[in-house]
């Protein structure tokens, strides 16, 4: 069949491997899955072409998946069409015609053994069996043919690798179709539904551990699984330590602070009189009464964790990290606003005498507290187990293909009643030196029995 023949070709495999390689390279040169504006800025007029050719989402594109599909068909057909002859080679019976092939082996020896072919065959069989060869015999005119083989699985190393790759590709399909993945952002104490599951999870506690030197040692989310509202399992989830429950895995993914609603502490006092300083605790949007000095109310209009002036001098937060926390503070004396301006936790002097009020006041952003949230990734991936099985086959297959080289010894026995002439031929595709010494040892011990 023409289609079968087409797909059983190794040349096709090589062609497909080259195409897959080139496609993969392109996918790493063009950043994947970015916005249309970014592509336009980066590639100009080419951007449209790239998008149309699906080069911007290459690994999920129809043509890349089609290549993978062709590759899978090619792998299957190649493996299936070669497996029959291989099975015969490894497990098939001996035949009288094997005699001719002995003459073609590189490793050969000719021995004269006492006794009829049948008894010589028994002795040779014993010797070879003790070296873990599996034996098959076939009769022939005035004698017999012995076929001894060992490490026969070695013939199937490449098939195991190919089979493993097919399972991995199948696992990829299962993951793509049935895999479920979602992000759960949780404040301490919050509970969330797990999408596609009938249980809930609650974040009991989130903490960041630091090394004495300052770097982050661990992000720890204490997570409880709730069935019908009752906790059934509580575990600490860390990077590299997911929680597993009923096929779902929960990973520590990200974390952050709820900066919309921080608790702030502000020190307000007279510049020339440190003893007049008062500490005020409040939240953003609040305006609270203060008992002096020189003001009656204090309010915070806005808070940003990482202050930066953006386009048009608009205040923005550069990141969600508290790298440059700043608060927009207002102070009133009765109905008169005496101060309005940004104050900075890291630059306390900046709040001195600025704004449109009286220069005699000083404002310091002493402390800021925001609830931390933890982002857990909830994933269920039924394809993963197939991947591990596939990996097992690939790894075992490599071992068999490279280091479990089959060895084959064929023996042709000819002779009359008193003496048998034995011709031994040995064959191994790799590790020939080791095989040669074994082959010679076999011949030597057969000679000694004489």
């Amino acid at each position, binding site marked *: 069949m023409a289609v079968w023949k087409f797909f059983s070709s*190794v*040349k096709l*495999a*090589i062609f497909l*491997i*080259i195409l*897959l*390689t080139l496609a*993969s*390279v392109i*996918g*790493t040169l063009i*950043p*994947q899955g970015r916005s249309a504006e970014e592509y336009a800025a980066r590639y100009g007029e080419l951007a449209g072409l790239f998008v149309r050719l699906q080069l911007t989402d290459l*690994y999920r594109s129809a043509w890349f998946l089609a290549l993978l599909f062709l590759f899978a068909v090619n792998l299957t057909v190649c493996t299936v069409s070669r497996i029959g002859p291989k099975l015969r080679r490894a497990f098939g019976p001996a035949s009288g015609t094997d005699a001719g092939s002995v003459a073609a082996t590189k490793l050969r020896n000719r021995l004269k053994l006492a006794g009829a072919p049948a008894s010589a065959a028994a002795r040779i069989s014993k010797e070879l069996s003790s070296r873990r060869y599996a034996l098959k015999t076939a009769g022939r005119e005035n004698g017999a043919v012995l076929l001894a083989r060992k490490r026969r699985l070695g013939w199937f190393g490449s098939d195991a690798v190919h089979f493993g790759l097919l399972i991995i590709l199948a696992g*990829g399909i299962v*993951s793509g179709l049935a895999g479920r*993945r979602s992000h759960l952002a949780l404040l301490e104490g919050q509970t969330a539904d797990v999408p596609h599951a009938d249980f809930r999870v609650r974040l009991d506690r989130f903490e960041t551990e630091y*090394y004495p*030197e300052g*770097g*982050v*040692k*661990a*992000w720890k989310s204490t997570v409880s699984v709730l069935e019908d509202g009752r906790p059934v399992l509580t575990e600490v989830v*860390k*990077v*590299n330590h*997911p929680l597993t429950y009923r096929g779902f*895995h929960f*990973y*520590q*993914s990200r974390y952050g602070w709820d900066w919309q609603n921080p608790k702030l502490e502000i020190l307000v006092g007279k510049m020339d009189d440190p003893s007049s300083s008062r500490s005020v605790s409040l939240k953003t949007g609040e305006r609270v009464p203060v008992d002096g000095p020189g003001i009656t109310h204090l309010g915070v209009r806005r808070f940003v964790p990482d202050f930066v002036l953006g386009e048009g001098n608009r205040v923005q937060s550069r990141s969600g990290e508290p790298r440059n926390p700043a608060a927009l503070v207002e102070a009133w004396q009765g109905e008169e606003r005496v101060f309005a301006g940004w104050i900075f936790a890291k630059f306390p002097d900046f709040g001195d005498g600025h704004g449109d009020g009286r220069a005699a006041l000083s404002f310091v952003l002493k402390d800021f507290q925001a609830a931390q949230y933890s982002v857990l*990734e909830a*994933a269920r*991936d039924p394809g*993963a187990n197939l*991947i*591990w099985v596939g*990996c097992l086959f*690939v*790894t075992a297959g*490599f*071992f068999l293909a*490279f280091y479990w080289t089959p060895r084959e010894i064929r023996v042709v026995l000819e002779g009359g009643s008193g003496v048998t002439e034995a011709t031994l031929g040995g064959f191994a595709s790799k590790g020939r030196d080791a095989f040669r010494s074994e082959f010679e040892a076999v011949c030597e011990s057969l000679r000694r029995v004489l």
Partner: protein
Amino acid sequence: MTESALFTMAFVLYILSTFVYFASLFARRVKWAGKGLALAGVGLALHTVALVVRTVTSGHAPFTNMYESLSFFAWATVLAFAALDLKFRLPKIGPSVMLIVVALMALASSPLMPKDVIPLVPALQSYWLWLHVSVTLIGEAFFAVAFVASLLYLTADTEEKREKLDSVSYRAVAVGFPLFTLGGLVFGMIWAYKAWGAYWSWDSKEVWSLITWLVFALYLHTRIVMGWKGRRSAVVAIIGFLAAMFTYFGVNYLLTSLHSYR
């Protein structure tokens, strides 16, 4: 003794070994190659102690930044070469392999590579760090030997030399490819699944590992099934090693990746 003192001593021994090897090559004294190997062996022993000291003082695997992994890769390359040399006798390949080792050690000692011990970030706190990185780099060290043998193949002048170099290149790939597959791809996928929740994300380092893998798959198939040998095989092995090196360095510096541990 401190790690940096041991590292320096190993470096000096590798340099001496390279000199002796080249002397043996140019003076046509094959016996000197044995001395070159012996020097490299002593260097390897000191280097091993250096890596152990680094592991003990830092409390983590000795390949978490560029300095450490370059040092480990140089160590693995000497190891791979010594193992192949003891089995197949490769006096002619020694000089060039040691030259690569010296280059790797020089790169590791350059001031561009920070040498401070930095505590492990959460993502690297896993025993898979040991398995994934060490097995991958040892596999790539065998690719390095195949690379040298293939380069020498292209410049060799006699058929006898070519045959030997071709077979050395194949044997190095035969060790390196399974190790690279196991360490780079299999262990990598398992660790990614444990740490990120996805065994494969088409991250650029993952893709380049796959590219490297495909190139060596090509090497084997063209060779075993289509009977390519010699020149064409050598070119494929060279491309494969370059792809492996791009996976190792290039991705960190030129592409964006989840794997950017410098």
